[in-house]
């Protein structure tokens, strides 16, 4: 079985097969040595590497694979082309989207206003904590898509900024 993973800009492919009771792995076409799979389940894999035993835990959410290994949790994205539609909305561009479900407590800017990079745009409250949402780039506020009291979901547009000319987006 072959799987393609994306993590950030990186794309990797892994071949997995069971031969004579042993798991044979190859990464980007090259055989992997020194990894001994000890126990397998759909949500837990125990293996040995470099003389040490480790355990990985795996959960699935659509094309995402959530993995816990040695105290670290990572999210992997499966697939090549078809995976693009599950791409997480990237903030840091001129469109500021909500990364959290929550409520808009305060809007600090108005449409047409010039803002510096890092300027507070609005205050979002989630889980009883207030967070300032900052301008990712310098520019002019094109749209304020929410009002005070608005409830927003993950990925909702909050503020759209027309970047200053010559500013890298």
């Amino acid at each position: 079985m072959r799987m393609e993973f994306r993590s950030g800009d990186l794309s990797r492919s892994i071949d997995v097969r069971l031969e004579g009771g042993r798991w044979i792995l190859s990464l980007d076409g090259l055989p992997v040595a020194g990894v001994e799979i000890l126990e397998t389940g759909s949500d837990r894999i125990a293996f040995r590497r470099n003389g040490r035993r480790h355990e990985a835990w795996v959960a699935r959410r659509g094309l995402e694979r959530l993995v816990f290994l040695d105290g670290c949790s990572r999210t992997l994205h499966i697939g090549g082309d078809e995976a693009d539609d599950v791409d997480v909305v990237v903030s840091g561009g001129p469109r500021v989207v909500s990364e959290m479900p929550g409520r808009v407590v305060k809007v600090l800017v108005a449409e047409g206003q010039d803002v510096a990079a890092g300027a507070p745009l609005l205050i979002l409250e989630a889980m009883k904590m207030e967070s300032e949402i900052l301008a990712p780039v310098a520019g002019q506020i094109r749209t304020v898509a929410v009002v005070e009291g608005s409830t927003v979901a993950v990925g909702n547009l909050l503020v759209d900024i027309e970047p200053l000319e010559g500013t890298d987006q």
Partner: protein
Amino acid sequence: MKRPFDTILIANRGEIACRIIRTCREMGLRTVAVASDVDLTSPHARLADTVVEIGPASPSESYLLAERVLAAAKSTGAGAVHPGYGFLSENAAFARACEAAGVIFIGPRAETIDAMGEKTAARRIMQEAGVPVVPGEYLPAPNAEGRVDPKALEAAAAAVGYPMLVKAAYGGGGKGMRLVRDPAELNSSVEAAIREAIKAFGNGLVYLERYLERPRHVEFQIFGDAHGHAVHLGERECSIQRRHQKIVEETPSPAVDAELRRLMGDAAVAAARAVDYVGAGTVEFLLDEDGSFSFLEMNTRLQVEHPVTELVTGIDLVRTQIDVAAGGVLPWTQDQIVSRGHALECRIYAEDPSRGFMPSTGRLLLYREPDGPGVRVDSGVSEGDEITQHYDPMLAKLSVHADTRAEAIDRMRDALRRYPILGVSTNGEYLDAVLDHPAFRAGQITTAFLEQHLADWSPAAVDDIVLMATAVADAVHLTIPRHSADAAVSQPNSPWARLGRFRLEGLD
């Protein structure tokens, strides 16, 4: 001793409600949980003998409504209410309402909550008892728009001086708190603190306090009974804080030796005696590098971080709270309280350290707690639960007990590696970075620790082995039908053996 009640209502949710229910069960007491509509199937509601729905998800329409909670106590025959921490735990009006309704409030007397909850009154009492306090000023109550009189604010700010903290008078846990370094930020910070305070504590009163740059936060657990006894159960070092929110706590403090413990403990007991304290409480101090300490505030509730005290003393604080509330005498004198070994606690939050610690919501797709000698988990969640934005993002407290501080750190780091939580992001990896830092290992910790040492922290790159393990797990997942997936985990022998089992069960 015959108790005046046989049923306790727990006016809380999450891990603390679960923890209180467990002790009640050991004591043979019947338990009543209250739950908002979204919490009806949550662990605390499932763990109790009875559950009463008290309103919608928003705490101000459920867990903070004293009359609903009391009505639930009445209708279920609960003779006592344990408020836990947060919510109604430091609400004197609620304590009075309980008394008026003939229900025992498991906590100090309403007057004590009033005196200590009004944090400037607490400071005066401590000054009279000869304990130094951090300079601070009260502010008048905010108006309906959540603003305070600008003249009064200006005068108070001038008296306190910068940098200063804006703190919720009825607050705790870092909520309703703002650090102000620049006078230009004063107004907006005060307004933000008021909004958070109203939301979290139902009261928007805030005050200003001088901000010390690099103190340690060291607090003492105190206990008093209605028969004039008061003791302390040692200190807790809570200096590791992110935005005034404690994340790692331990006891004993690496900065407190026997002599300092005696001095601070005496001050803490003096504070308890000054208000005839009944029940469990905490006296918080700021400890400076030169060993001088000043009173910060007194919390009239069970603290989040109480497990570390329980681990080193072997005392169940909730059991003692219940016994004292029932009119009992403290079961120990100061000499009989002995601390052994070292205990650490880590607070596990549903938040994403790589995205500015934004709270993380979603379903807990996989959640397995570590166990083993010296490992304790206080949690209020289980696998499959939905983590919402309605409540505090703390999922659990992971505590360990070991012979020495170094061993406790090793034990905690191993336990964190055996604590898979998938579906929401957590601060687990960040906590490990704290524990592994040389300055933490050396015990050199102040409230500025995280800013000083971990401001640039980011998670490590994805190791190839993560991809490989995932690919193997997916291969297994695709080749076995869902219903036998769990069985496969408990058959960790040869993969062929398990696949054989699949053929028998799935196809034949």
